[in-house]
């Protein structure tokens, strides 16, 4: 299954606006994407509550995984999203 590791750039981590943007982007891919923090268990990345529940902080590494048509391209796009600091002042 295609996977990607990425460090979250948002200074507040994956909360609030960054989390909303991420979950919306995942949902838009139409794929069952999962996200795991560090070595933790993967959770459904379409679920804002599960994503927020991971308490991903700034610079924490997460692993994204997805299966299906266009999974690689979708993951690349999500990685790009997470590499941007959405809370820059």
């Amino acid at each position, binding site marked *: 299954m295609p996977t990607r590791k990425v460090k979250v750039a948002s200074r507040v981590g994956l*909360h609030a606006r960054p989390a*909303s943007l991420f979950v919306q982007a995942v949902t838009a891919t139409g794929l069952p994407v999962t996200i795991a923090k560090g070595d933790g268990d993967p959770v459904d990345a*379409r*679920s*804002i*509550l599960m994503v927020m529940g991971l308490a991903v902080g700034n610079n924490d590494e997460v692993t994204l995984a997805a299966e299906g048509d266009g999974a690689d391209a979708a993951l690349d796009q999500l990685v790009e999203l997470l*590499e941007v600091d959405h809370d820059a*002042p």
Partner: protein
Amino acid sequence: MTTTTPTPTSQAGKQLTGIGVGRGSAVGKVVKLAPPVRPPAHEAAAANAEQAQALVKSSFDFVATNLRTRAAQAESTVAAVLEATSLMAQDPGLLADVIRRMSTGVGPATAVDQAVEGFCSILEMSGGYMAERVTDLRDVRDRIVAQVLGQQPPGLPPMTEPSVVVAADLAPADTATLDLDHVVAIVTELGGPTSHTAIIAAQLDLPCIVRVAGALELADGDEVAVDAAHGTVALDPDDAQRETIIGRAKARAALKESGGGPGKTKDGKGIQLLANVGKVEDAVKAAKEDVEGVGLFRTEVLFLERKTAPTVEEQTKSYTEVLKAFGDRKVVVRTLDAGADKPLAFAPSEEEENPALGVRGLRMDKRFPQLLDDQLTAIAAAVKATGAKAWVMAPMVSTVHEAAAFEQRVKAHGLPVGGIMIEVPAAALRAPHLIEKVDFFSIGTNDLTQYAMATDRMAGELAELLDPWQPAVLDLIALAGAAGQAADKPVGVCGEAARDPLLALVLVGLGISSLSMAPNGVPAVRYALARTTTAQCEEMAAAARGAIDAAAARAAVEALVDPEVLLAL
């Protein structure tokens, strides 16, 4: 919804306390948020599992759609919160958990309740920001439960007189629909200074007090005097209390109505009132405000989300837009202030133990000289295109050599006015030498305080040390101000300190000639300046520097200031 007949309790003199947001005050009648519908005790499992699942699913959808509709009607900050809340109501993880619980024989409303509580405890464990989202999630729950049970969603009753909204906490959906013709203040038992309610109240300029123990014991119709400056809610205020509170509210209103125009002291000395801006759209918005220009244009904001360095053409376009918006008003452009704490993808910094003390601001120039040259080229092109008055300054300058080298680069690009930020104590201490090399100073009080007090700006528990009223910080500002006056060159302040009206008076007394801040801070500073002479400002500066700590410095100035200014704060 049940309406209780107002039965004002006779408890005159009773006072509740909490954390005030803002400095407003108001008197009004208590209106409590209707309590949410709860799942019935011992709710039976659904007779028809399939129908019940469909009902729960459609209830989730209904609430999500409803929240999205409200988001579309709300202004941007509220809209963002409502958007996030609507995502909770269409969360596949939450819905799956509800359905799993129902399949074990739990009633539908109870299943929603239990599933939400499960997620709440996870968020609460994460603490801080996450824990404060619990309120948003419980609001989603209450709406879904009401929908599943076919009852009215929770909310505020219609209002007919000045009202103080009292609630455990307000959900984004409640704040989005506040009746601003009647709501004069908000009091909550829970929440915190960064909770949604507090943020929205600050934005609406409504006095707000959060974490008020016992707030829910107030009854509908009770008269209360809310004072955010002191964090108090007085029940059945007596005439004296009422007069103070209303007097303060009037003084604040007078301030809002007070004339605009250039800033000047009572004796007519001009003190420029300027705006801090980042994004181009902020600048365009700020240009419509009554400000004399921009004292700090943070150009790094244009760069932070970028993966590659913006081209000279792209930068020229952005700068031109900002300069054009301000016409012939002055715009002070700060060159890139990035580094280890605000990393740029196209100018990577190494892992640093102390990013605040590392390669940031002008110090990046050694590694990436092209960045500054491109920026200066673009600013010069924007100036040429608009004929605007752009000044350019560099952040994080510590030595005479850095200042001189920067000034040379500015002039080499044909830009007429170059200056430096005073943020490093070394620069303040050597101000007389530095000012010889540049055209102006701009003091960044946030960083100057962090460096002078050796206190990380992020260290919440050290907030007392980070106070710009610290006499040590005032001493450093005084050095920079005196150096500027001796050389007859302008010295401004563009940190948080500039928007504190009392501190602004002290700064003027220290020789500062311009104050730059978020535009909404300008009216209060203008009002304070207009009621104080230069000599009084100097007297206040001396008193503040003579104090032993930040609190004493502020108290000393409060004792000297025009009471009307204090009342309007």
